């Protein structure tokens, strides 16, 4: 892959590709001022810039919702597709089949993923389709004016005061069940953690699930909401402090053994988890599920890298495709020769 031809603005700070952060920006957001989604957009921009992903290699995908609009607000030099409601996973799967060189990032909402999209979401996880799947989780359908979604917590109240009597779907626990090998939860109000997680996600091969509590300031930021800024701030429970060391930087050993777990990622990058309170091993599935169950019952908002496994096989490799992306194969490679047809015809005579 050659690097993109855009020149760095003389003088400005640039990444390893010589690109300025501006090269990773998109159109202006049309979301409500203060919407958590915009905060996430900023960290996506920063993460791809700092990591130095070639913009043209990125495919931005989404479903329908306020959250699903955000791909138009970052990486303006990347192709994007805003699919129908809840079906982005199948689009992403198809896009990767056509071109496995793509770096796919999908942005979805809790309604788009956990309500209408639950089936496709689970099957994408099960296949372990290589992509970063971000859920901007506000517990409501923002774009349709604030109805409860399937991640709204039991007992939480809508802006109108209605009580939600259904249990929330924990998309992280679900993802682990479905075999996802990179499961994280974060909060739009925690940019530092978010940034590290997204960069780590870029370095992972396979589906990367990042569930981000992203308050809807217009419809779900009130008293009684469990997805509001105040509630999240009060109830956030850091699993650990996260830092990311990209493959192109030196790892410095500046910590005492024990209180830091260092996870080597697929592309040689590392993610460092510095103990914060709880004892926790993010490479242990059972422990991860148990931890989620506990924190859910205690109304804690557990954030951090909940489960990671760098040894899983992703969907593309299981297909054993030629190295050239299928989309770029010439006629001579995709249309068998006349002798092949002859052979088949003979077998049918």
């Amino acid at each position, binding site marked *: 892959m*050659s690097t*993109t*031809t*855009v020149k760095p603005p003389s003088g400005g700070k640039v990444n390893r590709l010589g690109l300025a952060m501006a090269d990773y920006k998109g*159109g202006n957001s049309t979301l409500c001022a203060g919407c958590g989604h915009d905060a996430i957009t900023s960290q996506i921009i920063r993460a791809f810039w700092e990591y130095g992903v*070639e*913009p*043209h*290699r990125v*495919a*931005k*995908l989404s479903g329908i919702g306020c959250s699903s609009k955000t791909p*138009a607000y970052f990486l*303006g030099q*990347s*192709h*994007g*597709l*805003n*699919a*129908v409601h809840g*079906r982005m*996973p*199948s*689009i*992403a*799967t*198809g*896009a990767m*089949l*056509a*071109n496995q*060189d*793509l770096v796919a990032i999908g942005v979805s909402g809790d309604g788009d993923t956990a309500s209408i999209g639950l*089936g*496709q979401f689970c*099957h994408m996880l099960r296949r372990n389709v290589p992509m970063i799947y971000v859920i901007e989780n506000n517990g409501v359908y923002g774009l349709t004016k604030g109805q409860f979604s399937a991640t709204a917590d039991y007992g939480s109240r809508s802006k109108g005061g209605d009580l939600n009597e259904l249990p929330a779907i924990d998309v992280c626990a679900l993802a682990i069940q479905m075999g996802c090998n990179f499961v994280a939860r974060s909060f739009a109000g925690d940019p530092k953690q978010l940034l590290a997680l997204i960069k780590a996600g870029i370095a992972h091969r396979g589906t990367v699930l990042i569930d981000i509590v992203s308050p809807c300031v217009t419809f779900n930021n009130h008293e009684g909401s469990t997805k509001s800024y105040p509630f999240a701030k009060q109830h956030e429970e850091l699993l650990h402090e996260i830092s990311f060391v990209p493959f192109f930087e030196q790892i410095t050993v500046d910590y005492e053994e024990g209180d830091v777990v260092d996870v080597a990622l697929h592309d040689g990058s590392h993610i460092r988890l510095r103990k914060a309170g709880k004892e926790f091993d993010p490479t242990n599935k059972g422990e991860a599920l148990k931890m989620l169950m506990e924190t859910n019952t205690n109304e804690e908002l557990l954030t951090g890298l909940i489960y990671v496994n760098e040894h899983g096989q992703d969907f593309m490799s299981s*297909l*054993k*495709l*030629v*190295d050239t*992306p*299928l*989309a*770029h*194969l010439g*006629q001579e*490679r*995709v*249309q*068998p020769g*006349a002798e*092949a*047809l*002859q052979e*088949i*015809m003979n077998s*049918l*005579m």
Partner: protein
Amino acid sequence: MDAFGSATTEKGVPVSQPSSQTTVLDEESGERGVPVVNDFSIQVATVNGSGSQSANSVLMRSIFQMGIPVSGKNLFPSNIAGLPTWFTIRANKDGWIARRKELDFLVAMNPVTAREDVETLDAGSVVVYEERLNLSSIRDDLTYYPVPFAKLATEIASDARLRKLLANMLYVGVVGELLSIDLKEIEAAVAKQFKAKQKAIELNLKAIAIGADYVKENITKSDPFRCERMDKTAGKIIIDGNSACALGAMFAGVTVATWYPITPSSSLCESLTGYMETYRHDEDGKATYAIVQAEDELAAVGMAIGAGWAGARSMTSTSGPGISLMAEFIGFAYYAEVPVVIFDVTRVGPSTGLPTRTQQSDIFSLVYASHGDTKHIVLIPANIEECFEMSRDAFNLAEGFQTPVFVMTDLDLGMNNWMADPFDYPEGKLDRGKVLSAEDLDRIGKFERYRDVDGDAIPYRTLPNTDHPLASYFTRGSGHDERAVYSERADDYKRNLDRLNAKYETARTRVPAPEVSLVDGTRIGLIAYGTTDDAIAECRDQLDREFGLKTNYLRVRALPFTTHLSDFFDSCDRVYVVEQNRDAQMAALMKNELRPDQIAKLRNILHYNGIPVDAQFVTDALIAGEKEGS
């Protein structure tokens, strides 16, 4: 059983249809003595899951190998084992291979249906049956050949399972002998059927021999039906429509196929998988394609659309229920202009309907798929050769027009075995459509995704991962302007929707033109599409021979209609549109485009009970129509 049901029926085909139960052909064959050579229909009645399929294939193939035009239709239930199944083989020296309502030769192996099977025969027919069923008592105007199949089976093999399987080969031997089918051809057919499996071949031949010997020793033939070698099938192949479509797709360079199993389309992607595994791997064993079984049809079409967007030649295949589920996504691909090929192997609707019966009732669902103003391109193969060719056309049109393209076949064509000419190797370049590379962009220096630059209403696109600052754009199912920027402006919206309409108009000039046959001195026309074609061909011959009625014929091969349709109506006074659906769906589309004076000429002939339409039905209906009509 109610009033209707109790009336004489043929596999439950109500007689409440343009009838005249005995046709001229039947009278001929009716006369004892006079041999009827290479012109009869055999029906084998068994239960499914009993392994009778290979026996039937052998029977059909051995007749085929004698040079006699033949067709086989499997009437099977929507379950896996134990329910009635009928396999009809029609041998016809003149090459008429459409289903024939009247049967000449029944092999009654299924006790459950034996009585009705016999009752619904025409006088003079032959019945081969398991001795113990005592069918001869039912009526006395048939020729009966009782055979102790069960007893004979015990001679073949000791193992019960094996015996059950081989028992079917017994009737192959019996029928072969009775119809004087060349044993060498039967042996060749068996060899073909069981490929290199020597043991299986021997066992089956043994069973066949036992059957044949029984006839030689115990039966004196008293019916007129006989096979004689001729040369009408030399060089032809036998294949099912789904496999032919699969081959078409493979030689069209399909790279991504995503599907969800559903009868009768499953075998399309399954045989595609088989062929691709053989012919589409590099030396190092790596695949130049991806075939994915999705979790459902919404995902299958979503993956295909995602792949089409990213530049793959992508397809999915399904049947009615899947089309309904894909509707929303199809509208997305239409509006966002993403290429994708969708095979619809139609079955009997509505809803689950009759999953293992044939019908042509998805036309509205396809052409108008999805909410809002949408119109889609539909290709309609009528035979094996077209399955192969149109599959390729479909990919070229889909990428050429950046839109979903349907290939509509049906269960009859898709799942039955058909004679066909070997396929010509597709020459020429694949039309990958208006895709701009980084180099193109350098040259042009400008890219607007949805601008009609060439005046054909087809815009240019770029693929993800095109390394050029101008390449990127945002695809969406919501309102957008020429630059693919989100827009709610009324003028942007209308301009775009009008362009999509213009694109459909362009398609009229590029889709496969209909097949038209105009006969001097007649003003009567027939219009049909898809598998109805076989019945029409024979029907036109019947009309000519029996009624001295010559007819023009137009076979629709694609939607949108081309100008030929209007011309055809102008060259006729009455046009009979023959369809295998209840609501005259294709005729409705015609009425929406024809002139009133042309519409005045339109008559409907509709056959929609799930059984393939037969020539006699059309002939009777047309004659009836002419009686009032003219």
